């Protein structure tokens, strides 16, 4: 059976009731794993509290951080600080230099763009860079629910173009809710249906809400485990030091 993942829940993590409501709702809607956006400066205690809430409900938690750097230099410095602490790193690319730097850095998992159509920098060059480091394009359904009129039309047109470019360069697409309240959560099938608005085919739709986000989590958990040494090198057994011959 396919396991669905929503990588972008954005409750106020200090509001425990809201977090609990959203996690419960996600579980009820059929999600197997959720990614909760955690502020960079969050304390260990707060993260442990989130883990406990998710464990009680029986849902898997992926810790996620959203970076919003103004310059490429700031992005690099943020990445250095947060990469070892969070399972998923997403960068909100509000300028072209930041978008380019994020697309070529292998520490970035998700590229997220603002809803303003003038600030969506996912073009051919960006896709080529992203495909080289296996970064994914993240599309949130929240603006599709909230925007009206011309701004929604512009966004849909941008998303259609981006989906085509992503397909051409084999950049995985991750569809998530980006929900701040439980009223913006939808079932995985409804989220998949929303992607028909920008012409994603059925297999790509299903991958965008299950395999693609799952692959990011599995890859990063492997890298963050203490047995990880380097790409394709892993400690499989620990023992006593070898005696000299």
């Amino acid at each position, binding site marked *: 059976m396919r396991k669905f993942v929503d990588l972008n829940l954005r409750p106020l993590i200090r509001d425990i009731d809201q977090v609990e409501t959203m996690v419960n709702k996600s579980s009820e809607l059929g999600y197997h794993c959720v990614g909760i956006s955690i502020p960079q400066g969050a304390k260990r205690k707060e993260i442990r509290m989130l883990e406990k809430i998710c464990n009680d409900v029986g849902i898997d938690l992926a810790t996620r951080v959203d970076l919003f750097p103004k310059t490429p230099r700031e992005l690099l410095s943020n990445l250095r600080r947060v990469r070892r602490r969070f399972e998923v790193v997403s960068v909100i690319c509000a300028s072209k230099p930041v978008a380019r730097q994020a697309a070529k850095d292998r520490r970035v998992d998700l590229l997220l763009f603002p809803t303003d159509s003038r600030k969506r920098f996912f073009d051919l060059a960006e896709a080529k860079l992203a495909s080289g480091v296996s970064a994914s394009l993240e599309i949130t359904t929240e603006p599709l*629910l909230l925007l009206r009129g011309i701004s929604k039309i512009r966004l849909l047109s941008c998303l259609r173009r981006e989906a085509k470019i992503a397909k051409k360069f084999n950049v995985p697409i991750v569809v998530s809710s980006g929900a701040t309240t*439980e009223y*913006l959560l939808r*079932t995985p*099938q*409804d989220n998949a*249906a*929303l992607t*028909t*608005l920008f012409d994603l085919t059925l297999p790509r739709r299903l991958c965008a809400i299950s395999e693609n986000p799952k692959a990011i989590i599995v890859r990063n958990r492997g890298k963050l485990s203490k047995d990880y040494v380097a790409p394709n090198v892993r400690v499989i057994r620990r023992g006593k030091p070898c005696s000299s011959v």
Partner: protein
Amino acid sequence: MLQRIRRRYLALKIVSEQPIKKSDLLNSVWNKVHQLYGEYGASQVSLSLIEHNPEGNYAIIRCSHKAVEMVRASIATITKINEKTVTIHIVGVSGTLKSLRKKFLS
């Protein structure tokens, strides 16, 4: 010979602070279909409300089998009805009313 019309029945779960009237529900679904797909798209949907239970917070609607994804997307985008915050989840889709009731509403 005319081909038999194939239909799909959708079970909806309505989450709202206050009960939603039958006419308001159907109007909001029609409006969303019209908003997203235009008059041409809306003409292909063959939408109708079969059952509405405000106490149980569920409803059943019927549409053309070719338009299920269109209706799903339209219903997913409903966030407000008459300025009241509402979420509508599609619990299940089936080809007959009998199996829909058996699978999703029993």
